[in-house]
């Protein structure tokens, strides 16, 4: 297989395959991104649902505590108030401590006098010291006291390496009623409300501000510490806690072609390779057929050569033996001789072409006089030319003997004159000029036919190429005469070209 054919076949297979693969890869990548996206969405949705659970827990606690705060309305002050508030804190699992702060920032409860404080209340002041020192107001102050009444909210602060929460309520009389939440109870309630199972391929975690795990559930445990696939902050008031989603197997990074794309690529690849093989077989079959034809023509030509030689030989013999007074017979014999010469030229051309295709042409130089050969060739054509009223003009200047292949010169010249005979009928003129310059031979062959346009001058030297139909109409030819003539001249170190001329065509043959 020629490298060119191999390249073409490879391209036929690889280019579409590559293109398809690229498109498939792109498609797969996009699909992957889409799946990732929807997975991310799902995970975030899941976390958002869990956040709602947390929000419900804090909302319920807030409602419960604010509802309880309503009970303090109309409560007695002093000792009895404290008694009641302590009782309330003792009974509610979410409460560590209740406090009431008057507008002038003093505490009605717990009592500020140390001897009336319980140990727990002392600890409360210790824990909340930073809160009071920060001067936080809780409510948004307003000129109209009734505006700020009823305001409530959460306040978070760190103490003892833990987050702590206050829920506060601004009372109509300007007092602030507050409760300190029991963080452990809040977390326990949250854990109680969050699921424990039911997330088979994931591990979901509730983590604190420093990333410490507060609670986690789900079957799969990431083998190594990895980053979560999705993460969301809880809604206020628990915004310092986060929910993290660890998926067991999320396709990451490397994009593997999905099976269906791989399968179709394979199918297309097989089809293309099949096609390439079919092309290759077809191509070689045609080449084989063509070479069979060529060898057949060569063989036939070769087989024709011997009988033709015999015909020519016996025609010559017959001419000598024929009496002079039979002009008709002489004329007929001449036709036989001329036509057999033409036929042998044709056969010679075919054989030469075959050899040139097989690169078997060889030079056989001998010392001869060029003009003698020229005249001998012209002599062969003379009867045919004269029959068609051609004017023959000779300018022969190559009378010195020189080393060259006479058979080749004969064949080239024969082809050129035969060309004039075929295409120069209109001009009825043939001019042959020979010249010897320093070891090389130049021969001009001129006709006054329609000529060859400069653009087509090279085309006439291509095998089996014939110029426009009106030129070649009604003219028989093999289309190998001129190509052979040029090949032979080049083999002989020279060239065959067409010169610019005012009318007709002038061929310049150079032999070295």
């Amino acid at each position, binding site marked *: 297989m020629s490298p060119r054919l191999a390249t073409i076949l490879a391209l036929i297979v690889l280019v579409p395959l590559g293109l398809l693969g690229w498109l498939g890869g792109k498609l797969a990548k996009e699909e992957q991104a889409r799946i990732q996206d929807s997975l991310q969405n799902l995970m975030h949705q899941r976390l958002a649902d869990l956040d709602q659970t947390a929000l419900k827990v804090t909302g319920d606690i807030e409602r419960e505590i604010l509802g309880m705060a309503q009970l303090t309305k109309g409560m007695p002050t002093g000792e009895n108030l*404290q008694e009641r508030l*302590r009782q309330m804190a*003792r*009974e*509610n*699992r*979410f409460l560590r401590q209740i406090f009431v702060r008057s507008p002038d920032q003093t505490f009605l409860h717990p*009592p500020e006098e140390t*001897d*009336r*404080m*319980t*140990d*727990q*209340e002392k600890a409360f002041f210790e824990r909340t010291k930073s809160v009071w020192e920060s001067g936080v107001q809780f409510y948004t102050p307003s000129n109209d006291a009734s505006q700020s009444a009823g305001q409530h909210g959460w306040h978070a602060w760190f103490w*003892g390496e*833990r987050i702590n929460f206050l829920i506060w309520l601004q009372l109509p009389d300007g007092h602030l009623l507050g409760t300190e939440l*029991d*963080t*452990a*109870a809040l*977390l*326990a*309630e949250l*854990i*109680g*409300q969050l699921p*424990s*199972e039911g997330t088979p391929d994931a591990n979901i975690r509730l983590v604190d501000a420093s990333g410490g*795990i*507060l*609670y*986690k*559930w*789900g*079957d799969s*445990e990431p083998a190594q510490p990895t980053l979560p696939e999705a993460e969301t902050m809880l809604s206020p008031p628990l915004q310092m806690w986060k929910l993290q989603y660890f998926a067991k197997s999320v396709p990451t990074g490397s994009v593997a072609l999905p099976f269906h794309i791989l399968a179709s690529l394979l199918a297309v690849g097989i089809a293309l390779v099949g096609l390439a093989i079919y092309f290759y077989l077809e191509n070689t079959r045609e080449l084989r057929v063509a070479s069979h034809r060529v060898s057949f023509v060569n063989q036939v030509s070769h087989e024709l050569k011997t009988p033709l030689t015999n015909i020519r030989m016996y025609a010559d013999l017959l001419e000598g033996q024929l009496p002079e007074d039979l002009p008709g017979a002489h004329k007929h014999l001449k036709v036989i001789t001329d036509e057999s010469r033409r036929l042998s030229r044709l056969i010679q051309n075919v054989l030469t072409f075959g050899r040139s295709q097989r690169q078997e042409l060889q030079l056989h130089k001998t010392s001869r006089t060029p003009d003698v050969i020229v005249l001998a060739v012209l002599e062969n054509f003379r009867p045919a030319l004269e029959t068609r009223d051609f004017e023959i003009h000779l300018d022969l200047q190559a009378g010195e003997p020189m080393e060259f292949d006479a058979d080749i010169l004969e064949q080239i010249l024969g082809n050129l004159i035969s060309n004039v005979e075929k295409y120069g009928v209109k001009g009825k003129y043939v001019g042959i000029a020979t010249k010897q310059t320093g070891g090389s031979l130049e021969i001009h062959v001129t006709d006054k036919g329609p000529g060859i346009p400069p653009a087509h001058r090279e085309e006439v030297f291509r095998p089996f190429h014939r110029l426009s139909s009106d030129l070649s109409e009604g003219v028989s030819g093999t289309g190998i005469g001129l190509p052979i003539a040029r090949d032979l001249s080049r083999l002989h170190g020279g060239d065959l070209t067409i010169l610019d001329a005012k009318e007709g065509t002038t061929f310049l043959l150079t032999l070295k």
Partner: protein
Amino acid sequence: MKHSKTFPAWLLIAALGHHLPLQAEQLALDVAMTKPFLIAGEKQLAHMRVGLTGFAMPSKEERPPVNVAIVLDKSGSMSGQKIEHAKKAAMQAIDYLGNDDIVSVIAYSHTVSVIVPATKVSDRASIKQKVGQLTAGGNTALFAGVSKGAAEIRKFIDKDRVNRVILLSDGQANSGPSSPKALGDLGASLNKEGISVTTWGLGEGYNEDLMVQLAQRSDGNHTFIESPEQLAGIFKAEFGDILSVVAQEVSVEIRCAPGIRPVKMINRDAEISGQKVFSQFNQIYSNQEKYILLEVEVPATKADTSKKIADVSVSYANMMTETTDKLSSTLSVKFTESKEVVQKSTNERAMTDLVLQQATAYNKQATQLRDQGRIAEAQKLLSDNQTYLETNSNTLNSKALWFYAQEQKADLDSLEDDAKYQLRRKEMRSIQFKNENQQTSY
């Protein structure tokens, strides 16, 4: 019903049988000074003891229904013998319960699984089957395990039920909140809901401070279990306690008389503000006494006079009658110039308890010293404590004090060697807890 004809007679018998033992049983409140006579003319510290004894359960059938969450450690360290014994013991325990009781089983490792959601104990076979399928592996999410246990309890929480989480762990809590304080806070908040947490530490690996805090602040039981074979017996004892609760939400309020200053509660958490002291028990078990010891400062008083020390009032939910009952008592002290009278009149029982509680406090101090590496000081303290207990066991004729003196000796022997002490420490904390909370059943 096919038996409609015999029904009235059957009902009559049942009704009669049911009403026979019905009588309003009350807790017994016993208020006493360790020394009813005080030396006259000097300011001094005195101790009062408030004891509450559960009445006898009228009959097994009438006991209040219970709501128990069994929270089992199934972390990797539990695998093998431990989990098998725990499973077996838990399955056995199901049989102690009646059809009206509620049970849930939770197992935790790094995550928590609700093995049996809170359910009435009617289908014992399926509950046991689920427990039997437990396998061990993973970390120890103790906080989450207790939280989930409490959440299961909460589904059927009822003041007329005995609500209890039983926690078994053999390892350090290492997933989620894991400080003794965090677990203690959780216990305190559960206590407010009437949920007690009983904590069992199995083997040498658990954190006894965490387990003690959790039990103490939720008023549950605590014990150190050396080998898994003991689990069956421990389950039995615990259920014996749970099934014999006769009073819940027990609050004790002590109002000290003018001039009497409450100093501290010796063996229990209490709120002290001004003259008022408030303490509580989550439950009182049948035929068991729980007591508190309060230290008060008494001003110098003339001889041959009497002085009121405090009014004691107790309020509790009577589990038999489903009513809130109140008890009250007043305590006075007399003054004499005779030291002999003071000595002779000593209330031996109250005094024994005071010595035991004080010895327990010393023992706790010794634990702290040893934890800080101050071995010599701890040794001295334990040795003194042993002498203190032995002396008093003689004068007060108390076996309990003598036994505790022997424990001091065992404690002393463990101090030098770190590994030995770490194991002994679990026993020390467990005994301290039992003394402070009068955990007598096991």
